């Protein structure tokens, strides 16, 4: 299957503020998580900058997935001291952060409708008016190279197409921080580069992307910051 054409042009932002390049977008003063007696990890003083691609590496079971889920507000942390978008929290995950932080599961769940409806979902939740919504949806579909598959139900998409759809669905919401869990783990070698391209494009548009993976193609990209989670501690390479 030939690679779909993926647009790399920057798209209009829907958010009011743009961050200066070197300012910290997300700052974790302290974050710990345990399962029962066993402490999974303790993270201190981690700062994420905009326009940067972070790769989260570590052995299976080290807690990569859990860390991403905590940052996305899908799971609670034991202790938490985090600052994002001007607000700090030491307890509950503020629901308004979900406007700017989006999480993509390792095996993303796609709604049983079609490509178009999936991409539109988040916009509908945000009550974006229909006219604007249609434009944004078309742009995101074009961005992911899925123009030819607009009305196709998810069950008929290939693995690569499904992953691109999941990314488009997140991207259309213009997140400041995108958390992606093992996006290329189950893809063949034709589909992987397309995903890498999309992630790079997000970064080029001044977003922050944190990717948990073992994929050397991503880890070895220029400009990538490697975060290694081993033995419960996070080290920046």
């Amino acid at each position, binding site marked *: 299957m030939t690679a779909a054409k993926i647009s790399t042009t920057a798209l209009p932002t829907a958010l009011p503020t743009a961050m200066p390049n070197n300012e910290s977008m997300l700052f974790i003063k302290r974050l710990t998580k345990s399962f029962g007696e066993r402490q999974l990890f303790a993270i201190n003083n981690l700062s994420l900058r905009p326009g940067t691609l972070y790769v989260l590496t570590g052995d299976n079971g080290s807690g990569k997935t859990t860390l991403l889920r905590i940052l*996305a507000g*899908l799971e609670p942390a034991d202790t938490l001291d985090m600052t994002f978008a001007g607000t700090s929290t030491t307890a509950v995950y503020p629901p308004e952060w*979900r*406007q700017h932080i*989006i*999480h993509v*599961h390792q*095996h*993303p*769940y796609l*709604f*049983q409708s079609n490509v178009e409806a999936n991409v539109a*979902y*988040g916009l509908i*939740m*945000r009550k974006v008016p229909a006219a604007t919504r249609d434009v944004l949806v078309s742009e995101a579909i074009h961005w992911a190279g899925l123009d030819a598959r607009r009305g196709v139900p*998810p*069950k008929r998409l290939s693995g690569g197409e499904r992953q691109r759809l999941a990314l488009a*669905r*997140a991207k259309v*919401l213009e997140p400041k921080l995108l958390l992606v869990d093992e996006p290329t783990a189950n893809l063949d070698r034709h589909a992987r580069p397309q995903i890498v391209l999309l992630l790079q494009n997000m970064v080029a548009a001044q977003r922050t992307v944190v990717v948990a993976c073992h994929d050397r193609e991503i880890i070895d990209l220029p400009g990538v910051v490697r975060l290694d989670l081993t033995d419960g501690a996070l080290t920046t390479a």
Partner: protein
Amino acid sequence: MELWAATQEALRMLFTGDPELWGVVWISLKVSGMALLIATPVAVLSGFVLATVSFPGRRAVVVILQSFLSFPTVVVGLVLYVLLARSGPLGELGLLYTQTAMILGQAIIAFPVLAAFTLASVQGADRIVHETAVSLGASPSRAALTTLFEVRFAVMAGLFNGFGRVISEVGCAMMVGGNIAGSTRNIPTAISLETAKGEFSQGIALGIVLIVMALVINGAFHTLQGEGQLK
């Protein structure tokens, strides 16, 4: 053979639009349709709440609900009868032997089926559906609706199952409806009567209608389901 002759007569009655016969069919559809209309929203909501909200005594409620799945319908009829009889607490309402009483009985019978199927479907839905919705900005209630929509075929299976249960049940309908010709006589009570009279053609004709209805509904459901099969 007598059975074959009766079946031929039955088909003739069906296709020449015998008014008594089709009148009974209409009452069946009307009563069961209305019963499902009022039971479904409440039942689906209850099933959903049971699947997603934890509260003290939840487990007991689920067990009771599931045991009502095979509750004898004639007992529902009996309890309803005792409430609605002239000597009963609600006798003043004059609801006994009316279509309203039948609708109430069938709604009560369908409720556990609908709720239990919804409970199972939502429980069977991966947590990931809810998380995806929330991650994309859905409020908890919108995310709940989305989850419910994603498992709609499993919920619909409950709907069809509930319909099947009430369209063919006779115990409750007989007790609270009274099998009055032209008003509370539905397909199963009519079959009961025609058999007692030895009028097998009528009984067979109505039986054919019931079977065709079941086939059509199941066929429609399977077609719909085919569209929505998960990989």
